[in-house]
């Protein structure tokens, strides 16, 4: 077998890898969208007045957060069909990622809401604003900037966890690399290219999140350091 990095081989498989990258981006985007909504649901469960709902919600979040995403993927993918629910690998992957990261996002939301000073609520009460109005006009505009860095970080986090989807057969970037590598019995180029593609996408994304964080802090009149 030829040693060293074979540029011609890398060039040959490049189009295939780039197409698969598109799938990875779609998977991350859809998974993130689901996670954003699931996070809201968990937040609601946390804030409802019912004690039982609170406890169940908290334990469920704790359970999802302290078990590996990989086994959760296997669980959803292999167990649901036994109950007659046949879903595609894509759908299973999206649901699992959405659930898993939804628990993290609910924490981000909670932290952001708690970051809004209590006096804001009291002032709204004093001004006789309705709860909906208070949320919409006073609390959420202040909470959202606090949530942005956390939300951005989990977008990057989901993106970096999409290769796990290859284990249940979702044809994303890592799956393509494994397939190409197995077919040609050369893993050096495909896996290295996956690494480089991830770097070129996630470093700008992380920088963008950091930049956003700085701008939000400036706009809020808070200057770090």
């Amino acid at each position, binding site marked *: 077998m030829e*040693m*060293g990095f074979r540029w011609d081989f890398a060039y040959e498989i490049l189009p295939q890898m780039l197409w698969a990258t598109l799938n990875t981006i779609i998977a991350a985007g859809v998974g993130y969208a689901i996670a954003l909504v699931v996070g809201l649901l968990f937040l609601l469960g946390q804030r409802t007045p019912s004690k039982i709902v609170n406890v169940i919600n908290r334990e469920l979040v*704790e*359970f999802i957060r*302290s*078990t*590996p*995403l*990989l*086994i*959760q993927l*296997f*669980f959803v993918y*292999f*167990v649901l069909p*036994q109950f007659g629910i046949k879903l595609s690998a894509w759908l299973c992957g999206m649901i699992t990622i959405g659930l898993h990261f939804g628990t993290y996002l609910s924490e981000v939301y909670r932290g952001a809401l708690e970051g809004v000073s209590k006096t804001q609520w009291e002032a709204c009460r004093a001004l006789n604003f309705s709860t909906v109005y208070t949320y919409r006009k006073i609390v959420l505009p202040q909470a959202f900037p606090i949530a942005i860095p956390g939300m951005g970080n989990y977008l990057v986090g989901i993106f*970096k*966890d*999409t*290769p*796990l989807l290859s*284990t249940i057969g979702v044809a994303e970037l*890592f799956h393509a690399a*494994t397939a190409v*590598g197995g077919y040609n019995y050369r*893993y*050096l180029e495909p*896996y*290295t290219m*996956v*690494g480089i593609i*991830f*770097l070129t996408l*996630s*470093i700008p994304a*992380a920088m963008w999140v950091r930049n956003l964080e700085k701008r939000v802090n400036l706009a809020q009149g808070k200057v770090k350091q």
Partner: protein
Amino acid sequence: MSYFAFLAEHGPTLLLGTVTTIKVLVCSAILYVIISMIFGLMRLSKNPAIQGIATVYIEFFRGTSLLVQLFWVYYVLPFFGISLEAFVAGVVALGMNFGAYGAEIVRAGILAVPKGQWEAAHALNFSPAKRIKRIIIPQIFPIILPPAANLTVELLKATALVALVTVVDLTFEAKQINSITWLSAQCFGTALLIYYIMARFALVPFLRWLEVVAARKVGR
């Protein structure tokens, strides 16, 4: 087949896998703590070359996916004549990946030590090495342990990935049993429960205890 019959037949295998998972966790935790300390300090160095190396390391490992790094270490390094055993490859990949995240925690922790402490150490004419070792390091533990505890729970979850490079851990055994029996709910459900118990009732209490000890050491 009832769940108890399943446990009686496959429980021991799953427990054996759990032991391997714990071994992977302990080894990679030690490695990641060492790497975080080294690179966290390097990141704060005034020498641009040292700082540059640390920045590149951290950005590289945080910028790519753990699974990709793991496969790279296990399947690609042999192309360069470095063949690692699956267990070693798993520990190295986990340790290096989490070391990059840990280095950022260490860096933030060192920066969070009040400036007066640095100045006082300076005024007392401590050498730079002694300043770090005797004054700063003992004080960063109460600051870095809470985020490091979160990271360590993440590490426990991430150890599941080593199953994909043929380390016979809990995840691997669960997958294996699933492919023989097709009792997916039982085997993956049990694996999830074992991970949950390890995280919630062993690892987290241990890390909380460490936090208390560290806080007491600096008189809080």
